[in-house]
């Protein structure tokens, strides 16, 4: 049975899309069929990590939400964009990066029930093992829906007071929505910090499992979303931690 995993953060810039893309690559390297949906309709970005741009994206989630195509028709097989071949497959359903289309969806809205039906249809038609949902940061209707329908939720946060408070809200909402599995991923932790201590403090504060503590990485900054980190740096501590997080999310 397919798993739906949402990756969320209360604030922007936490590395949500990067984490989602890396999790997709890790799962695909295990031979799994992965769907990745960019539900960050207002500020899409995960397509960049798979080397796509406006010209190379033919259809998008927006087209599906406007009834122009089936959701699977908006899915792009991005497996071949990975630097190292994997035995699985990755299908990306990007959100439109065209300014007019972003403006239209903000102006007119969309049928959120269609989004829910679309996720189920994607799992069925693409025979997915995992559907990863890259959400818009903060709390809005599509975020609540994504959390509600997820088998697992990964909340990304940085060691920052604003992130800590916002994450508390997200954890409370996730608990109210009875998400079966909730894990935290702490990202961009300064290397001078004691990673184990950060993990313990956060676990104690939220009563939730920390699936990974990712140290700040210059290599990640230099890569600058121009590829999938775990493929470029397979032995890096960040990659090892992300693999552990992937294991936790599949439990």
């Amino acid at each position, binding site marked *: 049975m397919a798993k739906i995993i949402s990756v969320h953060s209360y604030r922007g810039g936490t590395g949500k899309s990067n984490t989602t893309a890396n999790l997709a690559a890790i799962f695909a390297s295990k031979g799994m069929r992965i769907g990745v949906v960019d539900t960050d*309709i*207002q500020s899409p970005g995960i397509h960049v990590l798979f080397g796509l741009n406006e010209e190379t994206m033919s259809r998008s989630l927006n087209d599906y939400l406007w009834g122009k195509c089936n959701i699977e028709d908006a899915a792009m097989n991005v497996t071949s964009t990975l630097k190292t071949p994997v035995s699985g497959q990755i299908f990306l359903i990007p959100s439109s990066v065209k300014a007019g289309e972003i403006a239209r*969806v*903000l*102006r*007119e*809205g*969309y*049928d*959120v*029930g269609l989004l*829910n*039906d679309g996720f*189920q249809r994607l799992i069925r038609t693409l025979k997915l093992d995992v559907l990863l949902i890259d959400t*818009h940061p*903060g*709390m*809005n*209707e*599509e975020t*609540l*829906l994504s959390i*509600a*329908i997820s088998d697992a939720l990964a909340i990304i946060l940085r060691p920052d007071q604003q992130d800590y408070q916002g994450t508390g*809200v997200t954890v*409370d*909402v996730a608990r*109210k*929505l*009875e998400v079966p599995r909730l894990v935290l991923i702490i990202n961009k932790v300064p290397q001078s910090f004691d990673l184990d201590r950060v993990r313990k403090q956060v676990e104690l504060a939220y009563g939730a499992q920390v699936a990974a503590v990712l140290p700040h990485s210059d290599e990640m900054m230099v890569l600058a979303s121009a590829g999938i980190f775990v493929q470029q740096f397979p032995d890096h501590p960040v990659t090892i931690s992300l693999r552990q997080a992937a294991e936790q999310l599949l439990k």
Partner: protein
Amino acid sequence: MDEIMRQLADLPVHPAGGLTMAEVLSLPEPFSSVIVDCVRHGSISQEQIAEQLGTTLPLARQVGDLLAERGYLQLEDEQDADRRTYRVYLSRIRPRSELSSLLKKLDL
């Protein structure tokens, strides 16, 4: 079960146009859980409602029908007379509408 039926009778009739997720969250228990379950699985059967509420099938059907009557659930088209299934009708949304004001009402 009497308490549940009393709470149900007190639920306001939801205006046409579908539920928002924030409204689902602000519903009293056990209705919030029933509807979240329905959102998660796409639909919810009379049996699943009975299991959630720890009640009998006829009473679960009564709860499902009353939630439908009040605009929180919809009966699925093809109905077996004895085995009803319900869906949630979610409203159209605008992504820019952040929920800070609604979240404040949820007492989280």
